[in-house]
């Protein structure tokens, strides 16, 4: 009886530390990545284009870009596409996401970032952060999951607004009225604009 109790206690302790490790890992990962990105943004001797390239290089392993494309389209729409369409959509989506990410990053002007404690929600980890801006604070929530190659961001919520959800309802609206071709056209057009 005592042995059993000890075993159970041992398992509980182990799982507890495993959980804590996961959270720690995510916190460090995000913090290091963004510290690195901010370092590059502050370098004055680099051209804007070089900065952008480097930022994307740093950020790419942390973001689950293809998964974000898939989730934004949603299961029902995704399953209707053939392989070429899927590839086409994914590459366009990622391109758009990257450019909008860079645009947002350019608005950054030395605001303080506060990292809060990560939360474990089912199998995923949510990391809440706050951006202290000139007259208010902006809440940013990074949602990560464990992929085969480590923790990756699959969604960001800015002030409670999820990138995936807003993209998804827009795509859904377009696909309800039009065809996949319309969606591709729109994605291509907004990109060049």
């Amino acid at each position, binding site marked *: 009886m005592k042995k059993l109790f000890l075993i159970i206690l041992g398992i509980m302790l182990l799982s507890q530390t495993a959980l804590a490790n996961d959270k720690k890992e995510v916190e460090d990962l995000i913090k290091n990545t963004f510290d690195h990105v901010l370092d590059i943004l502050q370098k004055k001797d680099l051209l804007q284009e070089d900065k952008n390239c480097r930022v994307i290089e740093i950020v790419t392993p942390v973001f689950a870009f293809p*998964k974000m494309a*898939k*989730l934004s389209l*949603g*299961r*029902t729409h*995704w*399953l209707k596409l053939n392989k070429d369409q899927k590839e086409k959509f994914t590459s366009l989506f990622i391109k758009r996401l990257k450019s*909008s990410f860079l*645009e947002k990053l350019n608005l950054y002007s030395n605001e303080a970032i506060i990292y809060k404690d990560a939360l474990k929600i*089912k*199998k995923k980890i949510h990391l809440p952060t706050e951006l202290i801006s*000139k*007259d208010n*604070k902006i*809440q940013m929530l990074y949602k990560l*999951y464990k992929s085969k190659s480590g923790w990756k961001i*699959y969604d960001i*919520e800015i*002030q*409670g*607004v*999820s990138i*995936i*959800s*807003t993209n*998804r*309802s*827009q*795509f*859904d*609206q*377009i696909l309800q009225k039009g065809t996949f071709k319309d*969606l591709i056209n*729109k*994605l291509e057009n*907004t990109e060049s*604009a």
Partner: protein
Amino acid sequence: MINKIFFLSEKKNMPSNQPKFFFINTLVFINLAILFLCMISNEALAIDQINQPESDSTSIMAEEDDFDDDFDFDDEFDSSVINVPDPLSGYNRLMTKINDKLYSWIITPGARAYSFVVPEPGRLAISRSFKNIFFPVRLVNNLLQIKIKRSGVESLRFLINSTIGILGFMDPARDWLELEAYPEDFGQTLGHYGIGAGFHLVLPILGPSNLRDTIGLAPDYFLNPIHYIDSQTLEIGLESYQKLNSSSLYIGEYEALKQDSLDFYILLRDSYEQNRKMKIRD
């Protein structure tokens, strides 16, 4: 400016004037409308919920795909898509277009011109001062939600910023004591007590809203000290000035959001509803 706030207590006992009657009338009308429309939207929602799981399960069975490992992801985003009832989408889209013209032809150019005249620190100070004057809205709604600590922080902020902060033009409470404001409005109070958002509604000038938050505008109107100013012209002038000043601080953000969108109306609608949900949860 503190004096203006004291008008609040004096004027409440005076006979109601035209705009107040107008507000009460619209309130009653909106109340009747909400009852009727809630009945309709509830039924529509119920039908949606019955249909949803069936269509999902067939699509899973129909095809095998690498989406399999993403099931728990998909559920996470499914609910947020279905949850915006929008029976007035036709009107809403039209109003979004009208507002858009208003922003891009009048408000944004105006705010841009204004931002050339008044430097940013000045505009930030004015924005802080307005925020300080709007204190009763935040205090009462915090109290209504029985958020005692936050009400205390708000009161302390008002005291410190009105005096040491020179009529709220500065924010020593935030800068020195790390006391952040807790913005709450009546729409959030209603949401806090479990009242659903109702359908989405785009208001003229004010932009995205929903039934609940539109109703919440009326109580907040009476909590806003600006509306107790004797002169109607000054009241409207101050209010427009506040809008101009605050939009001058966010020049380009609206345009950036618009450029980023595929369906601007849907983006605005969903962003608004998700943001409100977060604010109510908070």
